[in-house]
């Protein structure tokens, strides 16, 4: 028995509030305690069960881009709260809270840089920002990311993470699906690759538009990927869902993905894909 295992057994009896947040991480999947430092060095993947935790752009950037190459692109302007929406809370207050909590302007940011020495513009969706949901701000960011890729004659890579469309923007959120699709068509006409990396979770209108239109479709292990929510399906068909339903490996089995890639291998794998898909004329 390794010393860490023994420590972990001992730790499990300590009440949660006595566990220093900055020292131990409790895995959401297997509930085991891991040294934070070990967990971070493992790219926020549980060393025990391989659970890939949800991460935002701040953590994704250093593990993806070559050191010092990443440059965050400005967020495009979009209307705030076009419907003056209010449920139990005002939408503007929800946005404010999400901005304070994440430090981001909206749920999608674009980063320009090099991945294994290959230039790319990368969109990173953050589930922590209102469930990564797609409103006009996200749609505009997607388009501006694609435009930056076209201007740089490099691929656009998107890391998806979203519960779906942002209901608080009503029909305008649905209209971001065709909007993003037009941007992808223009990238394609420019002869540039569009690569999708699906991360946990990607569902709803995001899956049913830009998340499924990649020239190459990658996913992180265990990521939940689907169109309809699991509860909606259960309530409609009144059947138990199969094991692993809507997980990355399940989609791979059903022909919806090219590959499931461990987080630690993403940089190298994306570099290789960019290399293969970069127009040959340019290389000559």
């Amino acid at each position: 028995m390794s010393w860490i295992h023994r420590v972990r057994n001992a730790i499990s009896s300590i009440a949660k509030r006595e566990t220093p947040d900055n020292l131990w991480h409790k895995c959401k999947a297997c509930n085991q305690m891991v040294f934070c430092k070990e967990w971070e060095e493992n790219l926020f993947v549980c060393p025990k069960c391989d659970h890939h935790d949800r991460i935002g752009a701040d953590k994704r950037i250093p593990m993806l881009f070559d050191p010092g190459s990443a440059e965050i692109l400005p967020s495009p302007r979009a209307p705030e709260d076009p419907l003056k929406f209010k449920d139990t809370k005002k939408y503007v207050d929800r946005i404010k809270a999400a901005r304070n909590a994440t430090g981001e302007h909206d749920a999608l940011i674009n980063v320009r840089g090099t991945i294994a020495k290959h230039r790319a513009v990368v969109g990173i969706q953050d589930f922590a920002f209102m469930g990564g949901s797609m409103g006009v701000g996200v749609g505009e960011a997607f388009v501006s990311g694609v435009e930056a890729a076209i201007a740089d004659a490099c691929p656009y890579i998107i890391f998806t993470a979203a519960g779906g469309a942002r209901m608080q923007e009503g029909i305008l959120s649905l209209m971001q699906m065709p909007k993003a699709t037009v941007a992808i068509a223009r990238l394609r006409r420019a002869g540039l690759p569009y690569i999708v990396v699906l991360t946990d979770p990607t569902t709803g209108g995001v899956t049913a538009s830009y998340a499924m239109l990649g020239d190459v479709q990658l996913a992180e292990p265990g990521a939940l990927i689907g169109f309809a929510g699991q509860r909606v399906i259960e309530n409609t068909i009144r059947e138990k869902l199969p094991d692993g339903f809507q997980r990355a490996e399940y989609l791979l089995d059903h022909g919806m993905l090219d590959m499931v890639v461990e987080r630690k291998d993403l940089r190298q794998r994306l570099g290789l894909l960019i290399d293969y898909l970069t127009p040959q004329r340019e290389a000559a």
Partner: protein
Amino acid sequence: MVSFLDFEKQVATLDERIHELRASASDGVDIQSEIDKLEAKSAKMLSDIYRKLTPWQKTQVARHPERPHFKDYVAGIFEDFVPLAGDRAFADDHAIIGGLARLGTRKLLVIGHEKGDDTASRIKHNFGMGKPEGYRKAIRLMELADRFGLPVVSLVDTSGAFPGIQAEERGQAEAIARSTQACLELKVPMIAAIVGEGGSGGAIALAAANRVLMFEHAVYSVISPEGCASILWRTAEKAADAATAMQVTADDLKRLGVVDRIVPEPIGGAHRVRSVAIAALKKALGEELNDLAGKTPDALRTEREEKYLAMGQLAG
């Protein structure tokens, strides 16, 4: 006689009285003037109700089981309809129907959701909820129309794409994404009409068109009011509030730039005088097709692209 909705109860009561009076007319008593008076009152009541329907009431009108469906519009608007079936990969989905048709002298492709109108046909058409093979059939037919220069008319009427295990396994999301993409790639005119319910991704997959028409009492939204309410209000009981907040009516969507033209319905909704509703749609489709007829293939695609790129942007 039509089935009445909850908010039409007063009209229903009045109509029942008219009916009873008529039945007693054989007694020789002159009651015609009384009947006329009550009929006028009933008509005014109905017109008053329909002039200020709430978004939630419109949702119920849009879902009315006697509202005209795809087959009724096809029969009433087009001639020589030739249905085309199958996605060539898995199955023929009866929730999404398409085929070649003529509107006057204009040949075109018509495609849309069919909900069915009795228990057997509702099951056959899966209540208008498309599966991946339905959207893949739509893609196949749109590509066919594109190659042969036929304009595409779509009639949208779905609560949403079908949420099921097999639908997910066969790539419901991918099929919707590709169908939306197929609309946007067309170099022929495309006109979409939201005739009943425009439900989320299952609707936009057939509605990314040059022109989007919408019936006066149809609804179109990113999620059903019940779904929105159960997530944001944590109870489906707040569906009426959700319908108002999400702005799902034709007037809302025209103001937001999502809908280009509102097609009027007869007083009391399309289900009360179906032929009037069908004729109104026929007229609107004919005019929009004429309007798009002169445009070049490239202009049609570019205009459509620019329209969707601008959706929701700040003015100016």
